[in-house]
């Protein structure tokens, strides 16, 4: 597998966690992240973003597999029990692998 292949980790969770998660993600070694506002439904019910307390965010992080795994397990341990959160991973091909 070429150097160009990195992990794309996507997290969907409560908007209230944005500031905290961003710090976690950087601390664990990711070089960047992208966030979009979202709404949705899951095990913890409908989150329709009608007002502040009730919106989701969708965070994408591209990194090598080791860092992605560390972020994933940190989030799982720290937030899964008490927050609406899912995360999933896939391989993506990037152009400048040294950036991630």
């Amino acid at each position, binding site marked *: 597998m070429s150097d160009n292949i990195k992990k794309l980790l996507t997290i969907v969770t*409560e908007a*209230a966690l944005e500031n*905290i998660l961003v710090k976690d993600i950087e601390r664990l070694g990711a070089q960047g992240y992208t966030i979009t506002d979202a709404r949705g439904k899951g095990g913890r*019910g409908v989150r*329709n*973003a*009608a*007002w*502040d*307390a009730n*919106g989701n965010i969708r965070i994408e992080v591209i990194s090598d597999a080791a860092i992605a795994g560390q972020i994933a397990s940190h989030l799982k341990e720290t*937030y899964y*029990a*008490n*927050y609406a959160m899912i995360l999933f991973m896939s391989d993506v091909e990037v152009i400048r692998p040294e950036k991630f």
Partner: protein
Amino acid sequence: MLDPVILFFIFGLSAGLLRSELRLPPAIYDLVSIMLLLTIGMKGGIELAKQPFLELLPQMLAVIGLGILLPLIAFPLLRYLGRFSRVDAASIAAHYGSVSMGTFAVAVAYMSARGIYYEEQMPLFVVMLEIPAILVGIVIAKGFSKQTNWAQVGHEVLLGKSIILMIGGLLIGWIAGAEQLASIKPLFFDLFKGILALFLLEMGLITSKHVGSLKKYGLFLIVFGISMPMLSAVLGAATGCLLGFSVGGTAMLAILAASASYIAVPAAMRISVPEANPTLSLAASLGITFPFNVVIGIPIYYAMAEYIHAFFGA
């Protein structure tokens, strides 16, 4: 008769319950709350400028005491009568110890429509009441645990959106004074009730989403959501009377005590006591207490203040 702004609340509530597609964009909800908070702050600041700050200190301490007392009363009720888990009881208690800006805004409109005088320092008390209840709630839930990041909690609480807007408004009003602010009066003061109407329309829509979850949590929450504010109002009115406030000021303090937070406290609890179920406290404070207070409660609390003054007042 019902104030017309209450009709907007009822309209929003009905539209929501009928599952209409009506909703205000989040950006508008933000704008409307920002303007209400700034205006309330400025109104308070203008009046505060007229009196010596030091005289307010004892009053502020009394109000902080009230903010500590209320969640300490609510917690055992919730824990032992309501059989909620420790964290849930603590979180709901924090909501009821704190205040609701929307309720305060409706009370301001209520008083001014009737030309009732109240002490000008009320917006300051809103800030004073908002904070201690959050801290008490966290301590009840977790003890003075080392795990709690108190610096972060402090930042979250003191620099949260609603507190900072109100403090900013207070300072601007204080520094500039009524005369200087005349140029921005058309936006912030003349439109106040119209903007409150839009805010209550949206609150009605939001409330309707929380009425549903009440069914799940049953009768206790409903009873608590009505009787706790009544109890708090008595304590608030008593405090107001002891501090020598006018009937209007006494009623205002009763209303503040009776109101339950649905903005600042939920945000703080979500971060500091994540184990608490947020639907539970919002169902009570938004689904029961807020509508009860704005539609029925305010006149009751005003009557309470009159009664207390008649019997115990100076």
